[in-house]
């Protein structure tokens, strides 16, 4: 029913824009990773794999990448541990307060990411709320310095930011479980525990995968929380990229790290998409 002209008019502008301002930049990122920078800080288009060799040769890159993976993994695990039972509670046990509780979980998402990270800084700092509270209650005498500027602080901040994001898809998955299935399980003599583990959990796996992927990928690439609350021991892989694009001025090497990160993320997205499909029953 739509003419050729109509189709051209709706399809061409977005395709042209996306190719120019989205596809080209991503391709450019990969191209840069094969270029070089001269000692005089000129970027030269001489195609080579030196940057990737450098990443393998200097241990600090792999070391920080592994730390980032570890932090992102812990953040995801903790966010699941916090988010899943909460989603289950809201979906199955909240009664008429369901809508209210759902909104309460969403509202923190509307507080700026930056501001929430900053708030943790004011809580954890040596003159911060937590330390002065502990001293006020005579639990400690001196400020506990390890609270701020540590991988722990980065993890805490990121868990705080991503728990609602993990909650959302799990809650959506739980809401889609036909309540009849749960009733049937009870009627056939399963205990609540059995029903939970053998009916509810398997049906909510796609939601868990979606939330976990989101949380893992975005924590892995985060550079603001480490800068704000991480300190030297909380540096993550994106911080190295930022410094290579700033003061260290080695765009090709920074591009190589970003390209690796992008490849890792795309592989992960591809894998989890297949997993999600496998576990989707409806």
């Amino acid at each position, binding site marked *: 029913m*739509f*003419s050729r002209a*109509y*189709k051209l*008019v*709706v*399809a061409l502008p*977005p395709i042209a*824009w*996306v190719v120019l*301002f*989205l596809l080209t*930049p*991503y391709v*450019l*990122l990969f191209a840069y990773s094969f270029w070089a920078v001269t000692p005089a800080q000129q970027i030269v288009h001489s195609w080579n794999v030196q940057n990737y060799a450098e990443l393998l040769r200097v241990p600090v890159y792999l070391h920080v990448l592994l730390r980032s993976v570890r932090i992102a993994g812990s953040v995801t695990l903790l966010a699941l541990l916090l*988010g899943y*039972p*909460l989603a*289950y*509670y*809201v979906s199955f*046990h909240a009664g008429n307060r369901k809508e209210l*509780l759902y909104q309460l979980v969403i*509202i*923190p998402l*509307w*507080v*700026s*990411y*930056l*501001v*929430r990270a*900053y*708030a943790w*800084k*004011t*809580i954890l*700092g040596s003159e911060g*709320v937590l330390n*002065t*509270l502990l001293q*006020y209650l005579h639990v400690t005498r001196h400020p506990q310095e390890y609270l701020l500027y540590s991988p722990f602080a980065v993890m805490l901040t990121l868990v*705080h930011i991503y*728990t609602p994001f993990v909650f959302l898809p799990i809650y959506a998955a739980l809401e889609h479980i036909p309540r009849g299935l749960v009733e049937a399980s009870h009627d056939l003599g399963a*205990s*609540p525990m059995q029903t939970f583990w053998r009916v509810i959990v398997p049906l909510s796996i796609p939601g868990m995968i979606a939330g976990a992927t989101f949380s893992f*990928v*975005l924590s*892995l*690439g*985060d*550079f603001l929380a480490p800068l*704000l609350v991480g300190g030297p021991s909380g540096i993550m892989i*994106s911080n190295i*990229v930022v410094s290579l*694009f700033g003061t260290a001025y080695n765009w090709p090497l*920074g591009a190589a790290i*970003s390209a690796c*990160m992008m490849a890792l993320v795309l592989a992960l997205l591809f894998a989890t998409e297949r997993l999600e499909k496998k576990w989707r029953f409806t």
Partner: protein
Amino acid sequence: MSRNGVAHERPAWLTVHAVAVLGFLYLPIVVLIVYSFNGGGVGGFPPRDLTLNWYQQLAQDSALWDSVLNSLIVALAAMAISIGLGLPAALALDRVSFPGKALFRRLVLLPLILPGIITGLSLLMLVVLIGLKLSLTTIILGHGTALISVATTEIFAGLQKADRAQEEVSLDLGANYWQTFWRVTLPNLKLPIVGAALLIFTLSMDEIAVSFFLIGRDNTLPLEIWSRLRRGMTPEINAVSTIIFVFSLTMIVLWYRLRTRGGEETADIVATAREEMV
């Protein structure tokens, strides 16, 4: 504990857990708001010398208000770009088959799924390549492009629900595509478009990872806050954050009002249609 309990019994630990998690989620927000009134600065327990000084100081802080204005300009322009391109993109995904369609759909979504640093850096490279000067324009370009994803997804979902027969009827009755678009297609998509616009607006106002790399001389609000944080903490930041929080809350409430009213309108139309059929 409830291993052998009755079917719908709620284990006590689950309630405790839910309360604890909500407490964890709200702790920083409460601290933030409380200390925006704290005369003694950020931190220090208990809070003391409650004051509105920080809000007064904020009112006179022209650099901060400039950045708010910049953020508003960026958000509105980004909204125009991403709706302007997301609407045709959704129409194309819904009713045009073209080579690379699956790739296009994935590509559009990438900025939402990839860490912001990757999109920001890639765009920076393009901007340098074509020799654009870094400014608010480059940030608008970045936000507008990254948020096409939001517009496309929301409007596409709206199209899936809309009744295409109405457009068919309009075309059959002699209206041209242009008239049909303005009088049938667009009014049917009013709700998803407004929803997408609000979402894009708030996401753009808060965006920092992409802007971080595309910033020129003029700061957006998050970047202004960022540069101040690097210099030290001041309750002024708590005060401005509190204001933004209250503003966002108002926006959500408005959006919910709008959406439920929209829902009722649809219900009304369905009810009337049914009566007429009977």
